[in-house]
Every structure is written in structure tokens, then in C-alpha cells.
């Protein structure tokens, strides 16, 4: 199936996938002598779940960091809604509606679950320092409106019972869920998930998969996720990018990828020349 960048189509399970929202064009990223990403291009379509897979050290997290504005590639550009994106600080990227979670959980350990989630609303709140100091009128109003949104996500991800618990006291699986809540509550148009299920048991993985599908389905959020569990990737994603040693070795639907010789070699550990 060949699609234009503006075409849309309907998936087997009835979701509409739109045109390209984000495009990586010939991205190259080096750290000193290490080439983490070598001339990679791919795109992400509106409403799809796009997986990025590859062995350890392939450069997957680096790719998300480029999208987040955290790493600046030496070559290539990122197109957002068809326009080349100028160099942006991470917080500016966040303001554009791109939210993410991290491979190693990056929550605010000293704050409660509720405060962590509320922090995710920060781009939606704009009362000034003085208004907040007085806490009457707009500041209080805003706090309550945004609290309602936060509580909705907290309900959605089934973490009501730990609302007031400091994050440092939570087990790993719940932390991952809180981090997803913090990203989701900002109502992102694109959600980047770096190994959302790493280190989870089967049951937790099932829960997490369900949440990801629900997010995509209910909010129409475009999702790019990195995942090692092939079963999960094949189940969840509409399209997959495969990376190995910084290079793109495959790009297509899950069934394309399953039958791609280069991908099979990379996963079976065939020697590189």
C-alpha cells in the first residue's frame, strides 16, 4: 500500500489514520566518535501507534531525545506538520503538545502522585506569580479546573488510591503508570513512550497495553513507542521502524517486519561485516 503524506486510511479495527504529522529527514547524531543515529528517515502519521524497535544500543532512545529537543542532531531535520522545525529547547517542544515518558522513570520523587500529575498541566495554566501569591480569583479557579482534568486521568489509569502518596514510596510498575499519567494529562497530540513496559510482569504489561490502546482510541493521540517485547509490539503497533547500530534496517507493518530478513538477522545476532 503506497500512501501520500496527506492521505488517510482506516485500519482493520476501524481507527482512522491521518496524514504525516512528524517526519524525520536524514537524521544523524554523533557523540564524539560514537554514531548513535546514522542518516535515518521515517515519518509518524496522525493517530497511529508507531513502534521503534531494535537491539540494545541501537539508538532508539536517542531518536526520541532528538524529537524531544533534548539532543540536537548534527545533520538532518525534523518536520512538524510539514514544516521544518527550528532548533527548540525541550520545554518549547513540550509546549507544542509533545509529551513523553522515559526509559528510566523520571518522576519527581519528592512530590505526591497528584502533584506529579498536576505538573503535567503546567502548559495549560497561565496565572502569574502575583495572582498565585494571592490565590483568589483566577489562580484558584485555574487550579480547580485543572485538578478536575488531572483527576480524570487519575481515574482513567486507575491510580486513585495512591493520589496523595509520595512517589518515592511507590513500586516500579505504579511509577511507570504515574509517569504515563503525567504525560497524558497535558493532552498531547503526540505521545512518546520509551519502553513503557520494561521490567513489568505479564499482568502489568497487559494493563499497560490496554491503557496505551485506550489512549490512542479515546483521545486519538498519536503514539510513538519503543519496546523490546515483540509480542507487545506486534499486537499494538500500526507500523514499526527497526534500528540496528544507528541504522534503519526496516520500516513497515508488523507483518512486513516479521518477514524482513535484515530484521531477523539483527535479532538472531548474525555477524555484522
Amino acid at each position, binding site marked *: 500500500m503506497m500512501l501520500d503524506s496527506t492521505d488517510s486510511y482506516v485500519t482493520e479495527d476501524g481507527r482512522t489514520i491521518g496524514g504525516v504529522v512528524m517526519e524525520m529527514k536524514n537524521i544523524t547524531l554523533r557523540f564524539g566518535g560514537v554514531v548513535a543515529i546514522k542518516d535515518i528517515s521515517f515519518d509518524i502519521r496522525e493517530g497511529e501507534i508507531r513502534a521503534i524497535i531494535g537491539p540494545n544500543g541501537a539508538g532508539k532512545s536517542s531518536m526520541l531525545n532528538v524529537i524531544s529537543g533534548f539532543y540536537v542532531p548534527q545533520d538532518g531535520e525534523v518536520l512538524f506538520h510539514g514544516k521544518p522545525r527550528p532548533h527548540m529547547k525541550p*520545554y518549547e517542544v513540550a509546549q507544542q503538545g509533545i509529551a513523553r515518558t522515559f526509559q528510566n522513570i523520571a518522576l*519527581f520523587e519528592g512530590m505526591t502522585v497528584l502533584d506529579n500529575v498536576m505538573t503535567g498541566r503546567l502548559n495549560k*495554566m497561565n496565572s502569574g506569580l502575583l495572582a498565585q501569591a494571592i490565590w483568589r480569583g483566577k489562580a484558584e479557579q485555574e487550579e*480547580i479546573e485543572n*485538578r478536575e482534568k488531572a483527576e480524570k486521568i487519575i481515574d482513567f489509569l486507575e491510580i486513585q488510591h495512591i493520589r496523595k502518596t509520595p512517589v518515592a514510596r511507590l513500586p516500579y510498575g505504579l511509577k511507570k503508570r504515574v509517569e504515563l499519567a503525567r504525560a497524558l494529562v497535558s493532552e498531547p497530540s503526540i505521545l512518546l513512550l520509551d519502553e513503557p513496559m520494561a521490567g513489568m510482569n505479564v499482568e502489568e504489561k497487559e494493563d499497560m497495553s490496554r491503557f496505551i490502546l485506550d489512549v490512542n482510541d479515546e483521545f486519538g493521540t498519536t503514539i510513538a513507542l519503543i519496546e523490546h517485547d515483540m509480542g507487545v509490539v506486534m499486537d499494538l503497533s500500526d507500523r514499526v521502524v527497526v534500528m540496528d547500530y544507528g541504522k534503519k534496517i526496516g520500516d513497515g507493518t508488523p507483518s512486513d517486519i516479521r518477514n524482513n530478513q535484515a530484521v531477523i538477522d539483527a535479532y538472531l545476532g548474525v555477524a555484522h561485516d
Partner: protein
Amino acid sequence: MFYREAGDFKTSYTDDNQTFPIKFDRYRYYVVLAVAFGIIPFLINDYWANAFLLPFLIYSIAAIGLNILTGYCGQVSLGTGGFMAVGAYACYKLMTAFPDVNIFFHVIAAGGVTAIVCTAFGLPSLRIKGFYLAVATLAAQFFLVWLFNKVSWFYNYSASGQINAPERTVFGVPVTGANTEAWATYLFCLVFLAISAIIARNLTRGMQGRKWMAIRDMDIAAEIIGVNPMRAKLSAFAVSGFFIGISGALFFAVYLGAVEVGEVFGIQKSFLVLFMIIIGGLGSIFGSFAGAAFLVLLPVALKLVGVDLLGWPTDIVAHIQLIIVGALIIIFLIAEPHGIAQLWRVAKEKLRLWPFPH
């Protein structure tokens, strides 16, 4: 079973967001306010005002200021003494330049000036963190003291190099100068503390506080979810400087009346206020009060017990004080970084469910 949460249900987010969500806490807060404003002014005498109440009120404001910067935003500062000096000298220059303006506004303006100076010295925090930032603020401390000694414009060219607070009144009652009464100076400082505490509480429970804490807990993640790190850090320096400047102005104008900068606002002051928030509790407004009360009362109590009661020599008691403070700092840093405030919280949590813990 007086202290209870059970049965105290919240039906709106406004209720749940209150500073004192539990009824009993709220009543206790009103009682404290009533005693502070309505009873103590009638009982106060010069000894208690000077030995405990005034320094407690003024240091509490400074501790709140430093706690916002260090406890909430995670930026260590050893420049508190220097910033208090900025407040003191700003207040002095304003008092002498505009004698007709009410001292209340001079103190506020002194806070404003200090906020600007503190923000300027906070600029290195955009590049450096932790230990290196502490050293940079230490440089600010020494530079500011040197500046106020060196440039005689700051002390209006007085021969002694000191600054002296002229008499100023509020509603006709003197609050600075030689003819003040204990209740008036006490109330004047109390008003500033009450306002500072309310502002600090409002800022820290809302989005601004979350941005500060996000920077403190993990600055990279904070930036990736949309916190502008420059704004968050500099606003912490500004708000912190505002409170510290007010406390410096009050310390000079109301409490001491005359100040020689190196003696009063030296590096010891920076450490004293830092110890207050470590012992009281980092990242807690209540902890700022607790730490200030503790370190102001400790020497008074030790003198009462050691010197007056047991007849020990003064210098031994002074050394005991140093040992106690040193030991407490180590204990709190290692065992309970959230200080007295956390011990208090744990005690309350136990009480909350007492007598049925399950």
C-alpha cells in the same frame, strides 16, 4: 481522640486544596493567630521581645525565603547574610531619603530591591548546580559585605561606618528608633511574617511551587514536560530574595536599630538560616518556623538551664550549644532530611488513626 480525620470528608477540590484540610488543624491555626495577635501583645515585655519573639519572627521570614530557594527549588545558597544586608541597607537608604513615606512601604521596597539583587546573583544557577552554586553564592556573600563596607554612600558617609535607624512611626506609634515599645515592634514584625507565610504557602501549593519542586527533584524531566528552567530558577531567587530582604530590613530597623555589616550580616548569618531550614525541614513552611524557633530558643534555654540553674561558666555553655547544633545538623541531614516538620507529620499521622491504627 481530639485529632481526627475520619468523618471529615471533602466534597470539592477547593476543600481538598486548603492549607489546613483537616478541621482540627484549621482550628489550631486560628487559635495560634488569635494568641499571636490578640494575647501576646498584652503580655509581652522587653526581655521576651528581644531575647525570643523579635528574632524568632524575623528569622522565620528569612527561613521561609531560603526554604523557597533551597528546600523547594533545590538551589543551595550561602548568600543569605549578604542578601539580608541588601535589605537592611536598602531600607536604610529609603528611610533617610524619603522620611515622609511610611516605614511599612520602605520594608516592602527593601524586599523588592533584594529580589532584584538576588535574581542577579542567581544567574550562575542557570549553568552550575549544587556545590559549585553554593560557592558562587558564597562569593556573593563576601562581595556584598565588602561593598557595604567600602562604598560610604551606602551608610550616608557616617564616620562610624554604621547605619542607624531613625525613629519612624506607624499610626503614630514608633516602631523604629530609641523610643519603641515591645508590643509595637512585635506586632509590626508579626504582620510581615503573617503576610510572608501566607504568600509562601500559596505559591508553594500551586503551579509555581510544583515547577520549583520539579526542578529540584529532576531538572531534565521538568524541562521535558515544559518547565522553563531559567524562569523557574530565577523566580525562586526573586521570591526568596524578597522575603530575605524584608527580614534583613526588619532585623536592622526594628530589632537592632544600628548595624555594622560585617558583624551582623556575615557568613555566620548565612549558615544560621541554612541550619534553621535543615533542622526545621527542607521544603516546608512550617519547618521554617520550627527551625527558627528552635535555633533562637536554644541559646536562651541553655543559658537558663546551664548558667542560671546549674552555674556552669558561660563559655562552656556556648560550646555545648555548638556541639548540639552540629550534632543535630548531622542527624537531620542523614536520618531525617525533612526535619522537625517531618517528625511532626509522622506524629500526627499516628495520632490521626489513634487509637485504632488499622
